[in-house]
């Protein structure tokens, strides 16, 4: 059962070269009780996708096509005004990128919580505070102290947790976290991830975590979606995707992660640089310039995101967007890219 169903979502930004898609034809399901990890490099469109789940793409961007069905709310792309404001925060909780810097430095956390309650026309503000205290305590914070604190009195990990309290205090069933662990050190990262998992399980949420760190996400997510150049190029159950990546980009991304054990020389950085809005390929596969498996057809036809089939049998829940046979990607690296590094 899906809490959120994204179908054919296209988000465009207006540039001097016309309207260019930052997210192209993305389809994604957030299921109840599951943590979905969305991984991609900077500029891959992952934050834009997340913001569009609030229908909050900043100008000069717009949702050009597609639907976002949220359980109990309807198609978010058609909502506006008061209904939209109620859905944001009410049905969907959002923890912003660098949420440790998104708190008001002039007000205590408690005052900001009351602001949140008033803007959502909560009649029982005492109940709201009680719920926030409860959430904070369950996340290992001293709730009363935190509500009386200004943001500068809290550490990075504590502010991140305050962000999660704000996202969940209105009983949102969908939780979206944009880069929740960037700028945190290892110990705080581990405790924030653990808390996300705990809060998720306790409240039976549908959680989406957006990150560029495939290592951090693999610790807690159930499903993994990999994004590149505005497209979702592969998704499926996390363990299966990590064990058997069938898209060359996923494979390269896993190989490029610094690991604590294993052969240092086996890991290699991705060649080339990630595309941005203006440099992403308009025709054919978006990854072909950096792809060691690229064949002639990749330059002409964009591969659609399709269920991965072995023979007639459908693999459970795996989708991939690649022309090359999955077994070829799995088995090896034909012709490793010439330059490792970043040619300008």
């Amino acid at each position, binding site marked *: 059962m899906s809490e959120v169903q994204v179908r054919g979502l296209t988000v465009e930004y207006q540039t001097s070269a016309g309207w260019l898609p930052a997210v192209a034809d993305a389809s994604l399901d957030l299921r109840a009780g599951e943590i979905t990890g969305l991984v991609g*490099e*900077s500029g891959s469109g992952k934050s834009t996708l997340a913001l569009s789940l609030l229908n909050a793409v900043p100008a000069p961007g717009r949702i050009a096509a597609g639907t976002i069905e949220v359980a109990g709310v309807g198609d978010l792309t058609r909502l506006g005004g008061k209904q939209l404001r109620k859905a944001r925060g009410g049905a969907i909780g959002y923890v912003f990128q660098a949420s440790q810097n998104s708190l008001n430095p002039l007000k205590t956390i408690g005052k900001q919580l009351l602001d949140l309650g008033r803007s959502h026309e909560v009649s029982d503000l005492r109940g709201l505070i009680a719920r926030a205290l409860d959430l904070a305590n369950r996340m290992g914070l001293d709730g009363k102290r935190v509500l009386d604190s200004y943001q500068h009195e809290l*550490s*990075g*990990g504590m502010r991140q947790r305050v962000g999660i309290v704000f996202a969940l205090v209105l009983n949102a069933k969908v939780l979206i976290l944009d880069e929740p662990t960037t700028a945190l*050190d*290892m*110990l*705080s*990262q*581990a*405790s924030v*991830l653990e808390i996300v998992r705990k809060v998720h399980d306790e409240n039976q949420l549908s959680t989406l975590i957006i990150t*560029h*760190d*495939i*290592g*951090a996400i*693999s*610790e807690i997510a159930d499903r993994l979606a990999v994004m590149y150049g505005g497209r979702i190029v592969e998704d499926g159950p*996390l*363990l*299966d995707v*990590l*064990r058997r990546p069938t898209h060359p980009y996923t494979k*390269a*991304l*896993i190989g*490029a*992660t*610094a*690991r*604590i*054990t*294993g052969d*240092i020389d086996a*890991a*290699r*950085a*991705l060649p080339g*640089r*990630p595309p941005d809005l203006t440099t992403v390929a308009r025709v054919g596969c978006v990854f072909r310039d950096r792809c060691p498996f690229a064949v002639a057809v990749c330059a002409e036809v964009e591969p659609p995101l399709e269920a991965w089939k072995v023979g007639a049998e459908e693999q459970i829940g795996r989708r991939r967007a690649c022309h090359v046979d999955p077994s070829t990607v799995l088995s090896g690296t034909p012709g490793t890219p010439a330059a*490792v*590094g*970043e*040619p*300008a």
Partner: protein
Amino acid sequence: MIEARGITRTYQTYGAFTGARTVHALRGVDFTLPDGGAVSFIGESGCGKTTLGKILTGLESFDGGELVVDGVELSGLKPHQRAKYFRRIQMIHQDPYSALNPTRTIASILGDPLRMRAKETGADATTRRERAAELLTLVGLEPDAVLPKYPHQLSGGQRQRVVVARALTVDPTVLIADEAVSMIDVSMRLGILSLLRDLRARLGISLVFITHDVATARYVGDDGELHVIYRGEVVERGLTDEVILAPVHPYTQCLLSAVPIMRGLEEPGPDRTAPTAALDERAVTPGCLFQPRCPFAQDQCAEKHPVLVPLGDGAGDGSGAGDGAGFAGGEASEHLHACFYPEARRVVGVEVGAASA
């Protein structure tokens, strides 16, 4: 060759209501950086590792101990005499997005320090331009494409390469990399790390690598020493791989346990652990600094302060070490720790299949 002996740095703050407060940023740090060598410092935020980097580059003073560069004790020198030593120690900054002036092209970003350096070497304008191009090639960028550009036209990884090139303009022998890869994409990190490793091999540059991400410390080169720093004090040191595979100090074990496991490819180490409380910099204890958060603390830990000793000299020497820690007993003097009850635990992830193979 840089030698630090017992470097201390204390900050005094005065609050309007709370009165004076003393913060011990560094409490006696010793290390030796041989020519062409590598030393890594790991620790969480607020443990003093950035202060150390600043002291080494001359951006911050220290109030105790000795900093010896090539046999000369720096604190005894006048500022203008010191300058030539600090010229040879350059910093690679954490955030490539704010370390470059957005209003200047790469050519002028590299040009200014080259001109300063030319006052000593007497290089003319043509040589300087050639040197700029040479440095960009060295860090893996195409000079003609990059020189006329502004920082915003480059990706994060490319900017960090420019930052490295800028540090190299004054012909340093030591690079201090303070969280040099934590702000850039995971997919680009290995490229920068292998560049640093390459610079060590090709130019014989030595490297001080400061990070909270232990995994990246492995990639800066062989024979690197790892120092684990907690509240301004080194609590464990040894060869990087030895410390990672068989850490004996509980703080090191907590740090290493926090490294995410790539599920499906790795399995969590059998002894994974976590600190029992959050860091409180104000906590004053006569005993071990880590005692209030230590999952293995015993009575003695709260009373006496442990000092760095070679592994094997104290009681409870690595008796709990598993077979993976076999070599820890080899060169006992290399591996130092500050814990009354050192016990090797396997906390890092193990590759799936590695155990059976």
